[in-house]
C-alpha cells in the first residue's frame, strides 16, 4: 500500500458539497458529528476547503448551475480522493429524474472529467448515519 492511500485511510478528511439537495441529507451528515455518532473518533473530519480534503461528500442531484462548480471542487481536491454520493438524488437523481434543470447524477458528472474516479454510493432518503459510516468503511476497505 502506498503512503498516499495509507494516509487517506488513516484519517479521511471530508469536504461537504451540496449540489442541489433538499437539506435532509445535510442534516443527517451534521448528525454524524454529534456526540451520538461522533465520527471524529475514527479520524473522519469535516474540513472547510477541498484542498484539505481526502473525500468529497456530495449530497443532492447535480443541477445545471451546480455541475461546473462540482467539477471545479473535484479538480481542486488532491488525488487520490473518494467521492461519496450521499442520498438517492446524488446516487441516481431520484425523484428529479429527467427534470429540466438536472445535469445528472453525481457519478455521471464527475466521470466527465475523471473516468477513473473512485465513487461510493450511499442510497437512502436520507441515508441513516449508520449507513453513511458503513459506506465510508466499505469504500476505505476496498482501496
Amino acid at each position: 500500500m502506498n503512503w498516499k492511500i495509507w494516509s487517506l485511510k488513516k484519517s479521511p478528511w471530508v469536504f461537504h458539497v451540496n449540489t442541489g439537495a433538499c437539506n435532509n441529507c445535510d442534516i443527517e451528515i451534521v448528525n454524524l458529528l454529534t456526540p451520538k455518532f461522533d465520527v471524529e473518533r475514527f479520524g473522519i473530519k469535516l474540513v472547510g476547503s477541498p484542498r484539505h480534503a481526502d473525500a468529497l461528500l456530495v449530497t443532492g442531484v447535480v443541477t445545471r448551475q451546480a455541475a461546473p462548480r462540482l467539477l471545479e471542487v473535484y479538480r481542486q481536491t488532491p488525488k487520490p480522493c473518494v467521492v461519496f454520493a450521499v442520498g438517492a438524488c446524488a446516487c441516481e437523481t431520484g425523484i428529479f429524474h429527467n427534470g429540466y434543470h438536472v445535469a445528472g447524477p453525481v457519478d455521471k458528472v464527475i466521470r466527465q472529467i475523471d473516468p477513473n474516479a473512485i465513487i461510493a454510493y450511499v442510497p437512502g432518503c436520507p441515508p441513516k448515519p449508520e449507513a453513511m459510516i458503513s459506506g465510508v468503511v466499505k469504500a476505505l476497505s476496498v482501496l
Partner: protein
Amino acid sequence: MSDFLRLKERRIMNHQQLIAELAGIKDRLTGIDETSNNRLYLNCKAEDSFAVNKFIFEHVGARFLIATGIDAEDCFEVLYHFSYDQTGCVITVKARIDDRQKPSIESISTFLPAAEWIEREIHDLFGIEIINHPDMRRLILSDDWPEGVHPLRKRVPAEAAQEKEK
C-alpha cells in the same frame, strides 16, 4: 403618509365586513369565488391586477404570502395570495393574461418589495413580462440556460426538449 403606515387606524374586520369592504374594487373584478369560509378568489384581468393588489394590501391590510404562475393552455394566470390574519382568510387575486404571444403584467413590487423575487421567478419559468420591475435579472435558471425558453410552460419549444436530452 401612505395607507400602509396607518396600521393603528385600521379597523379589524370580521369576515362579513371584509367581503363588504371588497365593494371598493368591485368594478375591477370579473368575479368573486368563495370556495370555503376562509378562502376568497378575486378574479380580474391582468390590466386591473395592480389596482386590486394595491387595494388588498394597502387598504384591506392583508399580508402578502406568495404569487403563483399558471399556464392554463388558453391563457396565463398569475395568482397573488394574501392572508388576512385577523380572520385567517386567504385572499387570492387571480389575474388572467389573455395574450399568449406577449404575456405581461404590471409589477406589484413597486409598493410591495417582498414580491420582487417571486416575480423574477415567474418571469424565468413562464416568460411573463413583468412591467416596471426594478431588477429583472435572471433568478432561478442556470447561467447557461438558453434565452427565451421557459420550462414551466405547457408547450416547451423543441430546442428546450433537445437541451434536456443532452
